[in-house]
């Protein structure tokens, strides 16, 4: 690990922009922070251009606060709304072709294991439902089949939000959306169930209405991925803009989903359970 890259040369410390001074002084790099500590430290995500009340950006904020060692974390994403917030995070973030994130992450993780055999470099995929469940599904599943030691986090807003509100595989049946003018004809893709039968050793389904659970899930998923294999966290991050509800209703929408199709669920192997109990 290297906090050196967040250590300014003394001579230049003064001339850094304010946000960097804050990151250096109060960022989460040197002592561990969690979701609980939000509001008391300088977050690694700076301002972002997400819409007011955006569930995705809340999800990003929460997961960014939950990273067990942000100074050794690399995030791999894909085009979509999540890009906008993730690009502002104070860590390495890669974003290339739509849907290739789990393949990029696999290559990256393996190379970092070669180059830093004695350091845990956490490679975390953070992407939307379109990137993971539609166009990148095969690459997602194969990273799980192959037991890559990466964490995959889906920010599920149940729509292609960034391109203007099209039906995604994770949209709910019956939803009328762009490209589904008569309502979606098939159910939400059961990616969470897929994860169970495709080799993930730990998985959580959660919503942004339960921030502490999000924090715990992300942290566990990353720690488990280091030791055992692929892990998956699916976070419901409702989109007020495309689903046309008022921005202050995001958490209510998420909360209601918790009683309905987005109940909290966790799965883990016994091995993993023992490991987590020890932590």
């Amino acid at each position, binding site marked *: 690990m290297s906090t050196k890259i967040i*250590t300014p*040369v003394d001579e*230049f410390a003064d001339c850094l922009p304010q946000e960097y001074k804050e990151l250096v002084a109060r960022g989460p790099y040197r002592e561990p922070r969690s979701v609980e500590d939000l509001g008391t430290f300088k977050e690694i995500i*700076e301002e972002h251009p997400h819409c007011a009340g955006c569930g995705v950006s809340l999800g990003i904020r929460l997961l960014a606060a939950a990273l067990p060692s942000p100074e050794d974390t690399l995030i791999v994403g894909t085009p979509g709304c999540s890009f906008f917030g993730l690009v502002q995070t104070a860590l390495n973030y890669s974003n290339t072709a739509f849907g290739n994130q789990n393949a990029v992450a696999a290559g990256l993780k393996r190379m970092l294991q070669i180059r830093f055999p004695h350091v845990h470099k956490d490679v975390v995929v953070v992407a939307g439902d379109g990137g993971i469940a539609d166009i990148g599904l095969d690459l997602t599943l194969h990273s799980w089949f192959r037991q890559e030691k990466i964490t995959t986090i889906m920010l599920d807003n149940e729509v292609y939000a960034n391109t203007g509100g099209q039906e995604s595989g994770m949209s709910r049946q019956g939803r009328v959306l762009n490209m589904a003018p008569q309502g979606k004809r098939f159910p939400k893709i059961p990616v969470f169930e897929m994860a169970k039968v495709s080799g993930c050793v730990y998985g959580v389904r959660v919503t942004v209405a339960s921030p502490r659970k999000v924090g715990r899930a992300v942290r566990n998923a990353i720690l488990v991925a280091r030791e055992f294999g692929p892990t998956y966290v699916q976070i419901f991050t409702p989109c007020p803009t495309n689903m046309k509800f008022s921005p202050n209703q995001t958490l209510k929408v998420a909360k209601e989903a918790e009683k309905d199709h987005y109940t909290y669920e966790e799965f883990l192997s016994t091995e993993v359970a023992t490991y987590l109990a020890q932590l």
Partner: protein
Amino acid sequence: MTASEYRVLPGPEGYLPPAAACMGVTLPEPGEALVEGKIVPEEDALQRIAEKLLAARNPVFFPGPLVLWAWREGVAEKAKAVLELVEAAGARVIPMPDYRPKYPMINPAVEINPNHPNLTIWHNRIDVGVFVGVHCHYANVALKIIRGGTDCYTIALCGEMGHEDAMITLRSVDTAKLRRLTEAVKALAQAGLPRAAGEHGRR
């Protein structure tokens, strides 16, 4: 290769002009430097940089991440050498702490960004800008944009092979070379080169 006829001069060069490398300008070999698109002995270039810095109305150094952050051995010392040069040249420092497209925008008074370096040049009315410690790709992108849209005279102190789109570029710049440049500036200043009017000095 025959020497290129193409001169790399301060802009504004116009609407998306080609990169100098595509106009036949080649990078210097060890011991050489590029001044306005022509290969010259390195010593000549040191001299030209000193002249440009001292004649400038508002010279500004743009240190990049490679010297701003104490990420590896030797950086602190190199940074110190950069600051000695800044001091000798009576220049200011505006950092390039990272390369991301920043939301909602950069504050051009306090930082420079390779994707739109022209904003910082315009805002601060910089007539001579010096790049140091910036990854080559980002330096090249920035230098091209500056030459396309502003009249700033750019100097690149590169740790690798140099930059065709800067008006003056040194290659393989290490701490020792920085110190040699500082000496050249000091010597010229002592000789009493007249300086253009205008506010300067470190913030």
